[in-house]
């Protein structure tokens, strides 16, 4: 039994690795399809051909693409993602602190999304068909329908500019995270609320809920002790996948609130045509998403005994 579990894990890890390498290869090829020599672009019009070639070869850019990719992967496995063209520092040194900023933001946003989403979904499910249900579900659809930049700017306009309660942008202390976290978590809260609601409603119709009530459990106890765990199974998967989405999808929030995270770094990399940096940020984000999916899978396995024992 545990043998198959290990086997399963190894297989999943292998798939995860293939996914990461696949995306890395795609991005690698895409970035090298840009017309013109990036070195020439960087050095400007006045650089002579000799200098361009010398620097190209020192960067390994004169080698065939597969060799360049192999070198890149080998380096990446040792934590070497090359050197940023524009910032003159190793990419690994740049993405580390940026990732940490994004991580804090994602955690804060996830807290908002989970607490608000689960609470609203649960209430809507229990009060199914009432005004509360309609109101919350209307809000949750609004949540998934509002563009992030709209929520971000509305919050900025209202709480920072108009009411002066919170900082407009930038992070000096924890209060700086409040508005970006709400802006980023808003959409996730909506989709979690919808899933929690439908899941709880479905579970409450199951036969074992009747069994629990027949034992003498009160309605609240039935909900907490029997319905919730089963209802949360699909939600946990969504939550894990969304967390990695929050980590890799904060581009707009970080731009609007001037947070020096991975998303903003990527935008800077594109603006500066900084290929190694852009490659580093996409690779990191892919890694985060793949790991998120893996964790989602494993969590589901841990929480659902039917899957755990391979049934």
């Amino acid at each position: 039994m545990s043998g198959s579990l290990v086997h399963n894990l190894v297989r999943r890890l292998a798939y995860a690795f293939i996914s990461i390498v696949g995306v890395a290869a795609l991005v690698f090829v895409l970035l090298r399809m840009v017309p013109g020599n990036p070195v020439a672009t960087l050095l400007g019009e006045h650089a002579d051909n000799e200098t361009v070639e010398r620097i190209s070869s020192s960067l390994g850019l004169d080698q065939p693409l597969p060799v360049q990719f192999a070198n890149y992967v080998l380096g990446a496995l040792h934590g070497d993602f090359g050197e940023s063209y524009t910032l003159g520092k190793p990419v690994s040194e740049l993405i580390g602190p940026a990732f940490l900023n994004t991580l804090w933001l994602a955690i804060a946003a996830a807290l908002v999304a989970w607490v608000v989403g689960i609470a609203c979904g649960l209430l809507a499910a229990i009060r199914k068909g009432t005004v509360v249900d309609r109101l919350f579900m209307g809000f949750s659809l609004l949540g998934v329908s509002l563009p992030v930049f709209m929520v971000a700017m509305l919050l900025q306009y209202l709480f920072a500019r108009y009411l002066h309660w919170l900082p407009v942008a930038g992070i000096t202390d924890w209060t700086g995270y409040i508005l970006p976290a709400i802006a980023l978590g808003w959409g996730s809260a909506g989709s979690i609320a919808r899933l929690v609601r439908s899941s709880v409603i479905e579970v409450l119709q199951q036969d074992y809920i009747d069994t629990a009530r027949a034992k003498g459990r009160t309605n609240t106890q039935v909900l907490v002790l029997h319905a919730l765990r089963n209802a949360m199974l699909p939600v946990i998967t969504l939550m894990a996948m969304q967390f990695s989405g929050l980590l890799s999808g904060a581009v707009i929030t970080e731009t609007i609130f001037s947070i020096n995270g991975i998303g903003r770094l990527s935008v800077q990399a594109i603006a500066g045509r900084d290929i190694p940096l852009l490659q580093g940020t996409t690779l990191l984000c892919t890694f985060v998403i793949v790991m998120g999916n893996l964790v989602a899978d494993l969590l589901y396995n841990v929480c659902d005994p039917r899957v755990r024992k391979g049934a």
Partner: protein
Amino acid sequence: MDPSQNANVTSVVEGELSLASATTSFEEPASVLRRLATDHKVAIVSTVVIVLFVLGAVFAPVLTPYQYDAINLSNRLAPPSLEHLFGTDEGGRDVLTRMLYGSRVSLVIGIVPTLLSVVLGTLIGMVAGYYGGKVDTAIMRVADIVMSFPTMLLAMVVMYTLGGGTTNVFLTMVLVGWSGVARVVRAETLKLKESEYVEAARIIGVRRARIILRHILPNCLPTIIVLFTLDIPSSILTESSLSFLGMGVQPPSASWGLMVSTGREFLYYAPWLCFAPCLAIMAIVLAFNYLGDGLRDVLDPHLQSQ
């Protein structure tokens, strides 16, 4: 037995089979509309909103006396008034006019690439589900890789490589969009493959391509329609986000995301620049989401909200 007669029998039996499968899951558009009208009034309102947006996009030149790119520096950042319902922008251009023209971009990008990825995803999903085995494994591995794309970043990389512009936005969205559809259609196909009428069709010797097109596709259709309706708003959101970052549609073309992005500089002096297109995005996305929700309830109660 005469082979032609045999073929004849096959087609008759198959005709009955497809009739049997059709009556179980396919509904007349009129009856779908009727059920939407009774149980999902919001969905009907949403349809009206969508139709209004489409009409606005098509008849933009007739509906407004202004040009979308007519610069009038003497009337910059004018607040909303009777002449300019949503005010003017930093170049003195009428915001409502630009929004009408911008809706062309947003609607086309919302619908066309989504349609392409749904068609592609359906084909791939049905093939993977029906053929199974190595074909299935290979396709699903690729879908896995696509699912692990950081969508925004990948779109940015594509835009960087190929440059901004409508076609490239299309390309990126199809590149990413097909995988989700393929997964759902594959699951559906696996289920249908086991159903009695598909088995029966296989036993009487119907060719595989024919089974897929005549028996599996029509039964996946309700699911596909729902997926299509619910994918349109997310495409619109992605386009507006890309344009907001300056990596989508390029000026002087108007797109809602682009208008929000340029309007952001004037957020505190002329908030209408930003919020008018924001409201348009919100309205159309909400409309499609409500319609999709209603359609799901009517067509496909088994499809989960995720």
